[in-house]
């Protein structure tokens, strides 16, 4: 397993697509074979580099979606409109095709299976990806750490890992927050995550939980502010953001 620090130069490795799954109409899970992969921690990310026939390259960072499993590495990529890398990876990119990947990177937004503290995972949209890696790492390690996941998304159709999250897991509570459209037959109205959600579905501040919050900038700002207001120590709140700021 990779430690906190990365030793030596991070090498670009050739990765080949071994398997692809449609996650939602706009997201695709990609499973790569990367010979010699050094392993990683749940929450870490990789850089992916595409090279065109004329030598042009583009690279982006993606969170790992699953814990280390030999030479297998799994990412879930959301198609960003006009995203030159994500459009290829969610579109024409086919089984057997190569890309280059290097990593793992990041030693802060990680969960270690030896850590017994309760965990709160708060995902906004595709921010579920590194948090799912933590849920899967917990299961793979047989950890008894208590996990709670609060997953905010616009509509039920946008759920990643829907089947897997539907299966009950001892010690993992899952709460969905729908902002635009509720599942059929579910009473209530769509709403955004708020104080009441995190007060009910999160951990009391004095339980010593670690919170991992990942999503668009505005979402992460809101959730982190609520956790602070509920009395959580800022040092127990780890964030990963994507997208632009509000101004």
């Amino acid at each position, binding site marked *: 397993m990779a430690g906190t620090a990365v030793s030596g130069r991070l090498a670009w490795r050739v990765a080949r697509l071994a398997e692809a799954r449609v996650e939602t109409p706009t997201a695709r899970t990609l499973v790569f074979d990367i010979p010699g992969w050094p392993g990683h921690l749940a929450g870490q990310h990789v850089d992916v580099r595409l090279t065109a026939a004329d030598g042009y390259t583009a690279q982006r960072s993606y969170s790992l979606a699953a814990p280390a499993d030999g030479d297998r590495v799994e990412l879930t990529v959301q198609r960003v409109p006009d995203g030159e890398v994500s459009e290829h990876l969610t579109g024409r990119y086919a089984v057997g095709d190569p890309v280059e990947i290097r990593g793992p990177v990041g030693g802060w937004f990680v969960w270690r299976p030896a850590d017994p503290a309760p965990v709160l995972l708060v995902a906004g949209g595709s921010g579920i990806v590194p948090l799912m890696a933590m849920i899967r790492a917990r299961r793979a390690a047989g950890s008894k750490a208590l996990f709670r996941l609060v997953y905010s998304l616009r509509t039920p159709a946008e759920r990643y890992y829907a089947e897997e999250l539907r299966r009950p897991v001892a010690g993992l509570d899952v709460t969905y927050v729908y902002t635009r459209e509720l599942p059929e037959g579910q009473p209530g109205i769509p709403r955004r995550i708020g104080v009441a959600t995190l007060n009910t579905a999160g951990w009391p501040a004095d339980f010593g939980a670690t919170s991992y919050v990942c999503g668009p900038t505005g979402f992460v700002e809101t959730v982190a502010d609520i956790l602070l207001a509920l009395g959580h120590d*800022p040092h127990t709140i780890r*964030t990963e953001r994507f997208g632009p*700021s509000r101004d």
Partner: protein
Amino acid sequence: MGVVTPGFTGRAHSGDPRLPPGQYLARDFPVLSAGPTPRVRTDDWEFTVVTESGEKRAWSWRELLALPSEKFTVDIHCVTQWSKLDTRWRGVRVETLIGDLTTSADYVMARSYGGYTTNLPLADLLDGQAWVAYEYNGKPLTPEHGGPARLLVPHLYFWKSAKWVRGLQLTTKDDPGFWETAGYHDYGDPWREQRYQGD
């Protein structure tokens, strides 16, 4: 040349000579940080510079604003591959803050409200290369972008431009800061793609 991915052509190549290798132009201004955004009231804000021998200078918010400042337009480059060109700021040059302090330190640890740290060579903060910035686009710097004040060192990757900066510790020894301890490069030159340790 790297391994060609069949069918990948890329966007129309911008070929902008101001973009370092591996960077793309961001239209917006992404926010990245490791934890909650600290909300620092300017009434409580203080900025200190401490030398290796313990000599110290400190400024309140009002004292900072009274120092000579300058407006500057620079390009910024984040290790997560986005760059923004011609961003407009206002701030105080770091050399103005170091002023008459006597030091033989070669390094600086920048410290932030919220606990963030990052290390830099002192020489990279002098000669008009770095500022303590408090305005962006003509407006006060917002908390999510590091307000009330952040360090700005545009010639290095943006994690070196510590948000919510509260002081500079001058040192004779180069110790890694927050992201440097987590595997990122000690120096972080975008033109040499010094993203991670060993690059």
